[in-house]
């Protein structure tokens, strides 16, 4: 393979080029309700070539190696078009060429586990939900994704890395008459198969919540103070703040770039946010990004002040800030873009009980159900919540969506617990999917959130 990639790169007449070949093996086992509806293992592969020449940059993704000359021709032509229109030429930050083969440390290689054992485990977790008579259906799947990546550049980098992701996850849907409720249950990670075993408690607990939601009342809309749990805090950190620490999102947005200047006070003094793909046992772990740059722990917010952001080589040069290895692609079908690895809010000291006392009256809101951001505004859903009255958890509420302004909300974080927890499964859709997007916080008190309700 390396010979093929080298021969392709040698044909490029440009200041810089790189090529990435990926082989992606996917195993999927899907249960819909009682029925096994899908099972199988498949392997696909493809290439991405990127060219930088005279200030113009372009990329082509292709699946058949026979198309590589056509791809090089298109990339050169498009880079020339970019160059002829560039008001500011594209420049890549300088780096050192690296050569390494990296394989993550695994606790149980999923390639050593038979598909029968994987099916049996998935069936067991699915059955825990389906045996409850109030559960109408499930969609629980085992997904295993193994990416073998080979990266070569004209600067001399040659990096091979494996990314292995496993998860058992899905929806549990309960029903009472016309009322339908659902919750998500998930276990998984990037450090092997063992993390999926002995996790019955996750599926039992989520089944109970799905059923309890049938008796819960819809939340009343308006402004309120709330404790959010680690999953929901993680989605806030990822959606509302994290995306704006991705340099490409704000690169050409003048007003956002002005607000997101290094040194700007964005949050309350207790807020510290970091992104760290080097945490080896976490879902978001990788060693090198898809530009061949070593991933770095990157401090983003320290005591509420912006101290860093996530970069590609292109944005690193444009901002005059250091590279940190955060430019990754979903797979061989895409050129890389800037992504978070493992983003988290650093823990404080307060216990959950102390947070409840401090909240007094409000809501305790749990578990993310999707989120989205647009400029400084964000919206995210929660799977369930409880009314909190005088520091005591009361009745369950449902249909919870929260909206807010990034800057106001970062300043409205009143307290941070000590119980940091990171997500086991991810799914960020910034044009490309990122199933290894990892996030988390401790329990947080956030004041003055807008809750949409009937």
């Amino acid at each position, binding site marked *: 393979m390396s010979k093929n990639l080298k021969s392709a790169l040698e044909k490029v007449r440009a200041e810089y080029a790189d090529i990435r070949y990926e082989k992606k093996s996917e195993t999927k086992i899907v249960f819909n309700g009682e029925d096994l509806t899908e099972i199988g293992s498949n392997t696909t592969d493809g290439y991405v070539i990127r060219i930088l020449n005279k200030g113009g940059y372009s990329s082509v993704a*292709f699946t058949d190696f026979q198309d590589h000359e056509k791809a090089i021709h298109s990339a050169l032509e498009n880079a020339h078009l970019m160059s002829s229109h560039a008001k500011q030429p594209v420049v890549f930050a300088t780096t050192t060429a690296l050569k390494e083969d990296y394989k993550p440390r695994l606790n149980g290689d999923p390639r050593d586990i038979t598909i029968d054992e994987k*099916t049996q485990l998935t069936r067991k977790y699915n059955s825990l939900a389906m045996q409850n008579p109030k559960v109408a259906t499930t969609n629980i799947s085992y997904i295993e994704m193994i990416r073998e990546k080979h990266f070569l550049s004209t600067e001399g980098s040659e990096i091979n890395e494996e990314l292995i992701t496993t998860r058992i996850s899905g929806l549990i849907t309960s029903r009472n008459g016309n009322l339908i409720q*659902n919750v998500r249950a998930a276990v998984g990670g990037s450090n092997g198969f063992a993390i999926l075993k002995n996790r019955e408690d996750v599926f039992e607990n989520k089944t109970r919540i799905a059923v309890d939601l049938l008796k819960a009342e819809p939340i009343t809309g308006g402004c309120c103070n709330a404790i959010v749990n680690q999953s929901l805090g993680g989605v806030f950190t990822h959606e509302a703040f994290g995306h704006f620490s991705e340099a490409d999102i704000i690169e050409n947005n003048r007003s956002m770039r002005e607000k997101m200047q290094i040194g700007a006070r964005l949050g309350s003094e207790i807020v510290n946010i970091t992104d760290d793909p080097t945490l080896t046992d976490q879902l978001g772990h990788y060693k090198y990004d898809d530009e061949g740059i070593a991933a770095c722990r990157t401090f983003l917010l320290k005591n509420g002040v912006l101290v860093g952001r996530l970069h590609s080589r292109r944005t690193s040069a444009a901002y005059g800030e250091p590279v940190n290895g955060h430019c990754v692609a979903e797979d061989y*079908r895409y050129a890389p873009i800037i992504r978070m690895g493992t983003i988290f809010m650093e823990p404080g000291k307060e216990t959950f009980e102390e947070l409840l006392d401090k909240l007094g009256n409000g809501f305790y809101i749990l578990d993310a159900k999707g989120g989205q951001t647009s400029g400084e505004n964000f*919206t995210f859903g929660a799977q369930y919540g409880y009314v909190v009255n005088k520091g005591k958890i009361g009745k369950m509420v449902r249909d919870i969506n929260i909206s807010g302004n990034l800057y106001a909300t970062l300043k409205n974080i009143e307290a941070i617990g000590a119980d940091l927890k990171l997500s086991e499964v991810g799914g960020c859709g910034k044009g490309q999917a990122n199933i290894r997007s990892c996030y988390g916080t401790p329990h947080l008190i956030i004041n003055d959130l807008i809750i949409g309700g009937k």
Partner: protein
Amino acid sequence: MDDLLAIARTCSDQAELYSIEQTEDTIVFEDSKLHDIKSTIQSGITIRLIKDRKLGFAYSRNLRDKKSLVDSALASLKGGVEAKFDFPMSRGFPQLDTYDDKISETTNTMVVDECLRISSLLQEKTNAQIYIDAAKKTSRTKIMNSTGAHLSTNMSSYLIMPQILFPGSATGIYRSFVFKTFQRLDDQCLNDLAEMYNRGQREMKTAGGKMKVLFMPESMYAFIWRLQSATSGESIFHRQSPLAGKLGERIFSEKLTITDDALDDSKPGARPFDDEGVPCRKHVLVEKGVLRNYYYDLNYAAQMNAEPTGHGFKTTRWGGDTLSVKPAPVTKYLTIEPGKQDFGQLIKSMDRGIIVCGALGAHSGNIPNGDFSIGLSPGLYVDKGEIVGRIKEAMIAGNIYEVMKRVVGIEGKSYPAYTGYYPAVLFDDISVASRS
């Protein structure tokens, strides 16, 4: 493909091949400057086998070894997934006009020049930041099966989406335009966008409460997703649709007729057959507010003892690889029948209300139940029949089976938007929560 099908037939009772070849050039303008050009040249093939009423599935991007692809499908077959359907024998499809040869003459330089022209025009009228996404695509889809189906269709499309950004935001006033090949955009539609932006420049707050809300075509998908979920044969079969058993019942305002029509080749992307080789059709879901039909692929039609409706498509919602998924019931060609009012009349009929130009977080919340709770991305504020500014922080919430009964008026023209072609629709009495 003939060789592969021959191999597959020797080891199965029924076999089906699906192949796709695609090219795409994407051009991105940010702040009126050319920011990125990227291209893809991709192909792939999938195989489904039925043997002893069990279903096997496999796929590949590079068919280097035909036998090993068949072997993967046979290995999958051992998992025991039941095949409750047969691959169809389909013939006599209508000839649709889906490919414009001029797409091959459309260069990236032409598209870049058009983006520059649009940027310049919009910037002159708004003095705002202009973002534009443009893409030209071609594809060739082939389906063969052991029953004798041998189908092929080509598609070409050109999409351009100009957006005028509000300061402090990553969104603004935008609209998508889709054609079968490159077309210069009409100045009037750009002027309309600029005028809307200019009217929404002032930041405002609302006290919240219940009010009229106008959903622009670009935000109607927030409601349509919930209807798609409820009318899918998959949801009906798995008991997660509130519309199960309600065919013939009135579910929405009688002003609403919602149809899925893959055969309408006046629009790009029309298809004579779905990804299983089943003929597509004009399929009414809701007629004058009355629920008329659900939609099915081969599998769920068989499970529900219903006719397949030509809705078996390979799609993913959040990225992912469509090649790697089996066909499932999907509506890709939805339209809401336009009404009789022009856009200006709709706004004039609002005493006080909000225009949802984009929905934030439409995928959150309880989609099967029809509940929605969305942020505004952005939302314009209307007072006494005039757009007077934009709302920064507010959420609107409700349930589509209540809200879609309260249609006040529908625009007389529809536009391409995410999930279909829709006009703007005005609803009454929707809850708005805000920080006043």
